[in-house]
């Protein structure tokens, strides 16, 4: 069983598709459940996996908390649990085998580090946040802020939630443009995902600004549309959040089912930062 968060943005559907495709390749009978971003739906799904007596459960948690009980139920039913992508906050770490994922916090840090370098530590930043309260939004913000706090001349001067959507990013950027008198003094736009950044790029172009030149554009995900923008020079950097991670996850799960060897609690999947100069663009 694999319990996915939902379908927001461009990245997650790609992740889901990859998980399903890879399962087929590996000959795994995958029960897939999409929680539509709802915690309760995800708990229901995991319990139905238990009722169906699956061999292993992979969870991409909607939220970090609230897992003790259902993981205990899984343990009682002798079904090993693996985490993909986000972490969970449980008192008893033995309730799951391991977490195999990227690190949101690190993504924020990578973006921050790139920007610090590109702006030489002098930068007024506008930030497009993800959905208020969503884990990647919180973690990316934290990672980003951890880096720029080292530079006294780097400041986030405006921040708003664009809900991880193109439309939201565009609206928020339009408002920023107006409230800062055409982004006067703004040197960079940091978006928690590419979709919002794409919206922001459109808003800037419509206001007669040149994204990528007037303002540095850095975001997270590295979706195909962003590759094009990077190539055009309308965006400057995007941190890759790999969606094709089935090939990292399944071997770990299958090996564990075979030999039940305990694993470290976090198997990190690498993240990379891409710019226009990155090979492949």
């Amino acid at each position, binding site marked *: *069983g694999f319990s*996915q968060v*939902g*379908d927001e943005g461009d990245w997650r*559907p790609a992740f*889901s*598709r990859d998980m*399903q495709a890879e399962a087929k390749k590996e000959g795994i009978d*995958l*029960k*897939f*459940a*999409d929680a*539509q*971003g*709802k*915690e*309760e*739906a995800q*708990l*229901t*799904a995991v*319990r*139905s*996996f238990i*009722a*169906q*007596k699956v061999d292993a459960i992979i969870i991409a948690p909607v*939220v*970090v*908390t*609230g897992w*003790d*009980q259902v993981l205990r139920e899984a343990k009682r039913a002798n079904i090993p649990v693996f985490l993909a992508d986000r972490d969970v*906050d449980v*008192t008893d770490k033995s309730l799951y085998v391991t977490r195999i994922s990227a690190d949101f916090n690190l993504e924020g840090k990578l973006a921050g580090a790139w920007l610090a370098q590109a702006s030489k530590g002098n930068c007024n930043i506008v930030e497009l946040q993800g*959905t*208020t*309260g*969503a*884990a990647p939004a*919180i973690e990316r913000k934290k990672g980003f802020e951890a880096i720029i706090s080292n530079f006294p001349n780097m400041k986030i001067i405006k921040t708003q939630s664009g809900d991880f959507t193109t439309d939201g990013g565009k609206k928020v950027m339009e408002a920023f443009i107006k409230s800062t008198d055409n982004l006067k003094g703004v040197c960079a736009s940091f978006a928690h995902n590419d979709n919002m950044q794409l919206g922001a790029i459109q808003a800037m172009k419509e206001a007669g600004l040149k994204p990528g030149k007037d303002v540095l554009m850095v975001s997270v995900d590295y979706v195909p549309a962003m590759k094009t923008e990077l190539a055009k020079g309308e965006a400057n950097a995007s941190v890759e959040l790999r969606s094709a991670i089935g090939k990292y996850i399944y071997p770990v799960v299958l090996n564990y089912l075979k030999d039940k060897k305990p694993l470290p609690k976090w198997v990190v999947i690498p993240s990379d930062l891409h710019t226009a100069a990155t090979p492949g663009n």
Partner: protein
Amino acid sequence: MKRTWLPLAATIAVFVALFGVGGALYNHFLSSLVLGDILDDNAFLIIAAIGANFVILSGGIDLSIGSMIGFVGVVMAKLDAFGWHPLASAAVMIVFGAGFGACQGLIIDFCEIQPFIVTLAGLFLLRGACFMVTLDSLPLRHPFVSDFAAVALPLPGGGFLASSALAMFAALAVAVVIAHKTSFGANVYAMGGDRTSAALMGVPIRATTVKVYALGGLYSAFGGVIYALYTSSGYPLAGSGAELSAIAAVVLGGTLLTGGIGLVVGALFGGMILGLIATLINFNGSLNGAWIMISSGVLLFVFIVMQRALVGSLTPRSAS
């Protein structure tokens, strides 16, 4: 009290039929484990739906349910971090829920603003309040939470009814008594049937409106408590959209949205139907997000049409 049981009977029949279909399609489906899971997983929703049922029976609507669930959760988690006992914070939140509902009721009646809109503002307000309390999801660490979760009534066939389901049944029993054995209950039905007439018949409209929204708030706060204990956490986005699920549960349970007609127990079966739909989809296990949305809609449609067909209100209309 003799009321129209027909729609409810139809709902139950359709539930049983689809449960059977699920059993025919999937292994391990036809078990008391699945049934118990449906009751547990949806207990919070059913509790909220019971409150919504009163509101709808009175001719109103309450959209603040989902936000209330989220808000109760984050506040309980926050208080947990300060070392409160969950029962104490639950009591506080239930009182808060009733009070918040009462305020909504007062605004609706005193200012003569439509309930849809007042409670929509309530939805925004409470969700916004969630974000102001915390942006993170917070755990409930008090040992009581796991003790509470450990309570389970075994069912024949390996399944069990967990504490949340038991709490839900208790809440339902109280609700049935309120609806059918008190004059407040009678007033609610009267007000939903015809407001002006009810007023002329001496139903205290303002008091009943305030009470019914207070009851709705109380039940959704209680639903929030159960949700927080069930997930042992508070999360500011928790319960979003639960109001529509609750309303759907009420309607599937045979209550008319125009008010005055329906049974309180309907919420139980309506909620179970929504749970059954989710379980069917999970057991299928090959649906992506798109198909899940589509099949939820289709199953909802199938339920409604089957229920209507059974009730016989799908009268054949001669093609003239």
